[in-house]
C-alpha cells in the first residue's frame, strides 16, 4: 500500500484516523495506541504478509534485549554482552536479507567459485527498522532511554508513516509523545496542518517527481542498452534524476511528517533544501538528515570520530560513507556512490582546515559554492541510479563529452535539446534551488530542531512572504494544489526509497 494509492488515501488513512480518535475521545488511550500498531502492521503486511513474522520477531527480540539490558544496568551487572548480541542479531538479519546474494555474487566473481544461493527478496523497510532498533539498544545501554511498555515500543518500531522509508526516529523523541497527555486527543489544527503538509508532499511526488522521472529513465535505460547518448540528452537526464530523487524522497518525508501530525505526533525533519547547500558537509546536514544523524551518532563517533587525529578522522569519514552507500543497496554502484561522498567530505574538511571556516560568504562566492556542490552531488547520483558500472561510466562520459559527443558549436548543442524537457527540468531546478521548502512554508507546524540554518533561511523575503497563514487565500491556494495532485494521482508509482 503506497501513500499515493487510492486504497491508502480514501480507505486506510481515514479509517485509522477515525478509529484512533474515537477511542481517544472515549479515554481508551491504550486501545487507541493498539489500533495504531494494528494499522501499522496491516500497512506492512499489505505488501507481503509472509514478512509480517519478520518484523514482529525483530520487534519482540529487540524489546526483550532492551529490557534485559535495563535489568542488568539496574542490577549493576554487565550488560555489554546483551548489547553485542542484540546488535549482532540485527546485523545478521539485515545481512541475510539484504546482502547475502550480493556477498555470494561478489565472492563468485572474485574467486571464480560457483556457490549457488537462491534470490532472497528484500523485505520492505528492513534497513529502516533495523537501524532504528540498533540505535534503541545502544541508547538503552548508555542509559539514555528506558522502556518497559511493549505496546508503545511496538508503535515506536512500526508506526506506519515512517516505517517504510523513514525518517529514522530516535526512541527518545517518540516515546514521550506516545506516553504524553495529548495522545489520542483530537485537535482540528493537527488534522488540518498535517493534511496540508501531506498534500504538499504528495504534490512533490506525483506532480513533480513522477513527471520528470521518464526523462531520467530514458537516459539510464539507453545507457544500460549501450546506446550512444547526446551531450544535451545526458545533461537533461542526469539533472532529471537529481530532481526526481529529491522530490520523490523529500515528498515522501513530508507525507510521513504530515500523516504523523494528523495523529498528533511530530516526526523529525528529513530534508532541508539540500540543493541549496554550499558544501558537502552542509549537504549532509540537509539531505536525509535522520540517516546522517544515525551514522554520526552510532558509527562515526564510536569509530573515534575526530578524536584520534586527522588521519583517523578522514579514514572514519570514508568508512562511514562507504557503509552508508552500502546501506542504500547491495551493489558496488552504491559503494562507489558512498565512496565519492566520503572523498567529497574529505576534500571539504581539508579545505576548511586549510582556509578556515568563513563567517559568511559573499553572494558570488556562495553561488559558486552552491554550484560546485550541486554538480558534485549530481555526478555522484549517476552511480546511484545506473544499472551497472558500465552504464554509469557511459553516462559520465556522455556528460563530460569524453564519449566524443560534445557538440561542435552552440547551435549544435541547442539543436540537441528537447525543449519541453529542458523547460520542465529548469522549472523544477528553480523550485529546488530558490523556492522555500515545506518547513519554511508551514513554519511553526513542523519540527525544525534538526535544521540549523532553518531560522536564517526562513527569514528571507520570499519565504516570509509565502509563509502559510490561516486565511482564505492560503486555503484556496492549497486546495487548488490538492486538486491538481488528486487529479494526477491515478497511476501510483513506487517511491525510490522503498527499495532500500
Amino acid at each position, binding site marked *: 500500500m503506497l501513500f499515493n494509492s487510492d486504497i491508502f488515501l480514501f480507505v486506510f488513512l481515514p479509517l485509522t484516523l477515525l478509529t484512533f480518535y474515537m477511542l481517544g475521545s472515549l479515554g481508551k488511550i491504550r486501545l487507541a495506541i493498539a489500533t495504531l500498531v494494528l494499522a501499522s502492521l496491516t500497512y506492512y503486511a499489505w505488501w507481503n504478509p509472509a514478512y509480517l513474522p519478520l518484523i514482529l520477531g525483530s520487534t519482540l527480540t529487540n524489546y526483550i534485549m532492551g529490557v534485559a539490558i535495563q535489568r542488568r544496568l539496574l542490577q549493576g551487572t554487565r550488560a555489554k554482552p546483551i548489547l553485542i548480541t542484540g546488535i549482532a542479531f540485527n546485523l545478521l538479519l539485515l545481512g541475510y536479507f539484504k546482502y547475502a546474494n550480493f556477498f555470494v555474487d561478489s565472492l563468485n566473481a572474485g574467486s571464480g567459485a560457483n556457490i549457488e544461493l537462491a534470490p532472497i527478496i528484500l523485505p520492505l523497510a528492513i534497513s529502516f527498522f533495523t537501524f532504528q532498533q540498533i540505535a534503541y539498544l545502544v541508547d538503552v545501554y548508555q542509559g539514555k532511554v528506558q522502556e518497559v511498555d511493549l505496546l508503545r515500543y511496538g508503535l515506536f518500531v512500526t508506526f506506519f508513516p515512517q516505517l517504510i522509508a523513514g525518517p529514522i526516529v530516535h526512541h527518545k523523541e517518540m516515546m514521550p509523545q506516545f506516553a504524553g497527555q495529548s495522545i489520542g486527543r483530537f485537535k482540528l489544527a493537527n488534522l488540518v496542518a498535517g493534511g496540508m503538509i501531506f498534500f504538499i508532499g504528495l504534490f512533490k511526488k506525483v506532480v513533480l517527481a513522477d513527471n520528470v522521472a521518464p526523462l531520467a529513465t530514458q537516459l539510464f535505460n539507453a545507457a544500460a542498452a549501450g546506446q550512444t547518448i547526446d551531450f544535451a540528452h545526458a545533461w537533461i537526464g542526469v539533472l532529471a534524476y537529481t530532481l526526481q530523487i529529491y522530490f520523490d524522497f523529500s515528498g515522501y518525508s513530508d507525507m510521513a511528517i504530515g500523516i504523523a501530525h494528523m495523529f498528533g505526533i511530530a516526526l523529525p525533519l528529513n530534508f532541508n533544501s539540500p540543493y541549496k547547500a554550499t558544501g558537502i558537509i552542509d549537504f549532509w546536514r540537509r539531505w536525509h538528515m535522520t540517516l546522517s544523524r544515525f551514522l554520526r551518532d552510532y558509527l562515526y563517533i564510536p569509530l573515534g570520530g575526530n578524536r584520534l587525529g586527522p588521519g583517523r578522522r578522514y579514514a572514519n569519514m570514508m568508512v562511514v560513507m562507504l557503509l552508508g552507500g552500502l546501506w542504500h543497496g547491495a551493489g558496488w554502484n552504491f559503494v562507489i556512490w558512498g565512496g565519492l561522498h566520503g572523498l567529497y567530505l574529505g576534500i571539504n574538511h581539508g579545505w576548511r582546515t586549510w582556509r578556515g571556516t568563513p563567517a559568511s560568504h559573499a553572494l558570488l562566492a556562495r553561488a559558486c559554492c552552491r554550484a560546485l556542490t550541486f554538480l558534485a552531488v549530481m555526478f555522484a547520483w549517476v552511480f546511484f541510479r545506473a544499472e551497472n558500472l558500465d552504464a554509469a561510466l557511459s553516462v559520465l562520459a556522455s556528460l563530460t563529452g569524453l564519449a566524443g559527443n560534445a557538440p561542435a558549436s552552440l547551435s549544435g548543442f541547442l539543436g540537441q535539446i528537447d525543449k519541453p524537457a529542458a523547460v520542465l527540468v529548469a522549472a523544477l531546478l528553480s523550485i529546488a534551488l530558490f523556492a522555500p521548502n515545506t518547513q519554511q512554508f508551514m513554519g511553526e507546524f513542523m519540527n525544525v530542531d534538526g535544521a540549523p540554518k532553518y531560522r536564517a533561511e526562513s527569514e528571507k523575503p520570499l519565504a516570509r512572504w509565502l509563509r502559510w497563514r490561516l486565511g*482564505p487565500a492560503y486555503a484556496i491556494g492549497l486546495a487548488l494544489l490538492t486538486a491538481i495532485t488528486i*487529479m494526477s494521482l491515478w497511476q501510483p508509482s513506487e517511491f525510490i526509497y522503498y527499495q532500500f
Partner: protein
Amino acid sequence: MSLSTINSEADKPADRNTDWRRYLAWYLSTLLIACALVAGFNAIIDPQARFLLVDKPGFNQVKTTLETNNRKGKTTALRQCSYDTIVLGTSRAEMAIALDSPPLNDGRSYNAALKAASMYEIRRLAEYAMLHQDLEVVLLSLDFVAFNTQSIFFDDFSDSPLAETVSLPSVVRYLISLQTLRESLATLKSNVRGNALICVDAGVHKRKLKRKAARTAFDTILRRYSTGQYNRYVSGDLHLQHLAALLQKLIAADVRVYAFISPAHVTHLELLAEMGLINEYEDWKRSLVQIFAEANQDLPEQRRAILWDFSGYSEITTEKVPAPDDQEFMRWYSDSSHANPNVGQIMINGIFGRRADDVATAAPFGVRLTADNIETVIEQTRLDSARYRRDNPDEIARMQEMLRNNPETARKFKH
C-alpha cells in the same frame, strides 16, 4: 520542538477551532468546486466515450484521443459509422483480415476483432454492433484461447460500453483526472475545427515489423502462450454457450455468418500437444461443429452459418521459421500466433469462393468443417502432426527445452 498545534496546550490564535473550521471550509469548498468543474467538463466531453451524455457533432461526437484498436475505440466506431460487414475475433483476425481487397474493400466493412478477446467479449461486441448497425455479414474468427474459462475479459473491457456493470472507482478516476481533462480539451478542439474523422479507420491492426530475427518474435510469442494462456487453460462450456447464443441471435437477425478457425503457425498445435492440451483442443473443435450444426438445423443453405478450419497442417501453417541470425521476414507470419494479411486474403478468397492469382498458394488451404468430416479432419491433423514432428525434430526439441527451462511450465511439461 516548536510545534504549536501538537505541543502547545495554550489557546493561541492559531489554535482557535473557529479559525481552523473557517479555513477548512474554504479549503474543502474550493477543492470540491475544482474537482466538480473538471469532472463535469470531462463528463460532458467524455473523450473516452464512456457515458455519452452529450453526443453532438462539431462539439464532442468524434473521440479523437481514443485509440482506435481497443474496446473503447472499436465500440465508438461501431456506434458512429455505418457498416454492413464486420470481422469479429481476436488479434489473429485483427491482424490478418486487412479489408483492402474485394469483397471487403468497399468501405462498408469494419474489423472489430479485439486483442485477447474471450468469446464472451466477442458476443458482447457483436450484440453492441447489432444495436447500432444493420449488419449483413459477420466474419467470425474462432480461436482456442478465446474459450479459456479462466479468461472473461481484457483490461480495457470494464471501462468500455461493453461492460455490464460500472465500477465507481474507475468512473471517479476517469472524471477527476488531469489526463482526461487534457483529452477533453483535445477532443473539443478537433471537433470544433472539424478535422476529426474516425470512420476512415478500418479497425485493422497494421503491425510494423522490425528488422529483427523472425525467430525471436516466434519464440517470444510461444513463450508467452506457454506461460500464459495455455498454462492457465481450463476448458468448459462457458464460452461455448456464448458462441451458441451469438449464433442464434445473428441467424435470427438474418446476418450471414462465416466463421473460421484462424491459422496460427502449427508450432502452436505442437505446443498444445507438448503441454497436454491437444485432447481439449480436439474436443473444442468437435463442440464448435456441434454448435454450428444445432444452429443450422432446419435452415436453408443460404442462411446457414458456415465454419471453416484453416488451422491444420498446410504449406502456409508449416512455413519454415528462419534461423536466429536470419534478418528476413517470414512470408506468411508476423510471429507464431499471427498470420499476416497475405494469409487473410487467401482465407477470404476461400470463404467467398474467389479466384486470387496474386497471393494464392498452389496447395489447398482450409477446409469447411461439418459433422460429417470433423473426425476425418482431426485424424488427418494427427497424421500431419506426426509427420511434422519427424521432419522438424529441432523445432520440437527447441520447444521442449523452452518448456523445461521455465519453472512455470516445467510442471506441465510431460516429458
